[in-house]
């Protein structure tokens, strides 16, 4: 009897798990498949196969201009977020001071504040000080602030296991503070920096919420432009663009998997 329960219980769990795992990949597979359709409207499965929508995507001016905007914003904001993340992680890993809790809370606050609030609050300020037309700058600022918690967490956890005495030994042997950091600490936290940078880049490149508010005028990002095309343009070009974004994300995903492992996501 117990055996029967065990087997049917396990079977039920397996069936449900497989269903929901299929659910998780379904929209991705469908997007990829329908981007190769030969027809002028979207159906799944497609009536025939062709790459015409990829050609159409590559020929579209909006795809290229917004793609470059997105890359520039992601690269610059990731670089700043990594620098801020290293500094903040070092403060939190090495120092105890009055207000340390408040410092941690401040730096992690973008995880608490809803994205629409960050986006609208920054837009509100930029209108007030009349910088709302500096779209790229506003987007870089917004993305930097929101991705710094990711770089902080990832660098911080890679600092946690480090032996402080190594750095102190180097300093007592005559190394300056800077050279002790660069020669001892930095090599040890490189995995954390790489993981944090990849997560920050991916977040920035794919973000819609904050970008929807800040790129309202100029300097639209690829996801925001894609969003308006999905709303108004019923041809399958957005499917091809979406598929290209999936492939780019997959490249970064595999990079994380090969370099630091998927644990960086699971440990959160």
């Amino acid at each position, binding site marked *: 009897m117990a055996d029967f329960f*065990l087997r049917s219980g396990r079977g039920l769990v397996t069936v449900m798990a497989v269903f929901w795992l299929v659910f998780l990949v379904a929209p991705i597979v469908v997007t990829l498949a329908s981007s190769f359709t030969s027809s002028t409207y979207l159906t799944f499965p497609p009536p025939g196969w062709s790459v015409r929508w990829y050609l159409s995507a590559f020929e579209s001016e909006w795809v290229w201009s917004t793609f470059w905007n997105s890359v520039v914003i992601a690269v610059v904001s990731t670089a700043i977020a990594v620098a*801020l993340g290293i500094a903040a992680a070092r403060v939190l890993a090495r*120092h105890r001071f009055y207000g340390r809790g408040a410092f941690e809370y401040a730096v992690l606050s973008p995880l608490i504040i809803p994205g629409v609030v960050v986006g609208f609050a920054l837009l509100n300020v930029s209108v007030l000080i009349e910088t709302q037309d500096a779209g790229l700058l506003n987007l870089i600022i917004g993305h930097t602030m929101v991705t710094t918690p990711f770089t902080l967490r990832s660098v911080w956890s890679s600092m946690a296991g480090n032996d402080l005495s190594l750095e102190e030994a180097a300093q007592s042997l005559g190394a300056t503070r800077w050279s002790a950091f660069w020669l001892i600490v930095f090599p040890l936290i490189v995995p954390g920096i790489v993981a944090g940078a990849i997560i920050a880049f991916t977040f920035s490149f794919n973000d*819609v919420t904050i970008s929807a508010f800040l790129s309202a005028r100029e300097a639209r990002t690829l996801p925001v432009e894609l969003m308006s095309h999905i709303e108004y343009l019923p041809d399958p070009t957005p499917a091809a663009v*979406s598929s290209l974004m999936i492939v780019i994300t997959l490249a970064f995903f595999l990079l994380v998997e090969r370099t630091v492992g998927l644990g960086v*996501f699971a440990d959160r």
Partner: protein
Amino acid sequence: MKAGRFPASLATPVLLAFAVFIVAPCVMLLVKGLEPTAETGEWPDFTNVLGVFDSKIGQQALNRTIRISLIVTAVCMLAGYPVALFISRCGPRWRGLLLAVVIFPFLISAVVRAFGWTVLLGDSGLANKGLIALGLIERPIALVQNEIGIIVGETHLLMPYMILSLLAVLQRIDPNLRHAAESLGASPVSVFWRIVIPLTLPGLLTGTLLVFSLAMTAFATPFLLGGGRTPILTTLLYDYAFTLFDWRLAAAIGIVLLILGILFVTIHRFVSSRGMRSYG
């Protein structure tokens, strides 16, 4: 850990950035949202913030936000548990692959995922075709541009958080506990109910709070899958900001969302510190 002095040279640039670009804008939002509506009014004026709950559209959006978030959380719980259990029981090879299946969608842009769902849930999409083939419906029903679309999209968006929270606790369960219970005569069913479930409660709670708070504040998914007629708080904020140009009301909704965000993190911190204590 060095004790004492404030590490000014390292901490100041970071603090400055957050003060200028996060704290100050949020304070400005507060100022804007509490601006007096009447010429003679005084600051702070709570009319707008309370108006979010008073106006018909605001109330509908609030109710819809809560309703959708509750349903999404429940579905994520019921769906995420078997998935996490299944993955935790797999061998290392399969576990790696399935973990990738869970984590990968979570990195893809919300726009792209919503797009996939519009294709799947559309009138001639696979979901409608499947339901017709099963004989459950006769003609295609509307699955997007309404609450169903938002629920499906948000479930897809947030289920990975639930699965990862559950996996974190499932992997920490000592297999000896199960062996001990079984050797003492416990049936697999009672091992599940009396050992696995109680030990995974902290993870379930973390996942639930995370999913619920993220469901309340999701934007792109409800924007694309809900259409114009089913606003939730976040998309209503966007509408006020960009189509109705009433920034005072938009700021008021922002304040409500900000309070909700802080509330959930506080509950989360409280619960997780309690949870850690009672479950070791």
